[in-house]
């Protein structure tokens, strides 16, 4: 699953550490998410989307092969 976390984080001038603290995960998790290596739970996806004030489907791009 692709996502726009890096792009949106940079728009808000947030560091990976700052975003990690906002959503209560480690910086390593944010790095993995940005690199597309790890797919978050629905709870974490919701928290991240809330930080950016956007809906989940805008931040995370679902593709047929993800289903």
């Amino acid at each position, binding site marked *: 699953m692709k996502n726009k976390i890096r792009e949106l984080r940079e728009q808000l001038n947030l560091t990976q550490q700052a975003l990690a603290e906002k959503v209560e995960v*480690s910086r*390593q998790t944010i790095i*993995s998410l940005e690199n597309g*290596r*790890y797919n978050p739970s629905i*709870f974490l996806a919701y928290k991240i989307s809330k930080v950016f004030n956007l809906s989940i489907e805008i931040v995370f791009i679902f593709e047929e092969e993800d289903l």
Partner: protein
Amino acid sequence: MMSRDEDLKKEFKKEFIYYGIFTFIGIAALISYAIGFEKSVMCGIAIGFIPTGIGGLLIYRKAKTHPGLAKNFKLEREERNIYISSKAGHAAFWVSYGYVFLAYVFSNLVNVTMQQFAIFTLILMPVVHLIFVAIYHRKY
């Protein structure tokens, strides 16, 4: 729905009880050793359980008053770490299963006692788990 902090407090309480049980078993083994019941076994249990139990109790007690330590525990229990740990546990189980199966198949060729086999297995299983945790930390 419970908040993350409430979840964590509940988790701390649970861990505190586990380590209390560890300490209790260790002390019971020490008493058994002192009265002379199965001395070598009880000595081993006491040596293993008492430091683990007391160490755990001290760490979790300190975490109540040290926000930095509590934060570390919180991050240890974040979803990616839990995911990696579960996946590593699953992989380690099947590797260990294969190892026991092969040990059985080749039991006529390899001459080891049950005790040696048990000690090697007890060391191998957590090592395999740790290896998979390291692999999955790189992967995810």
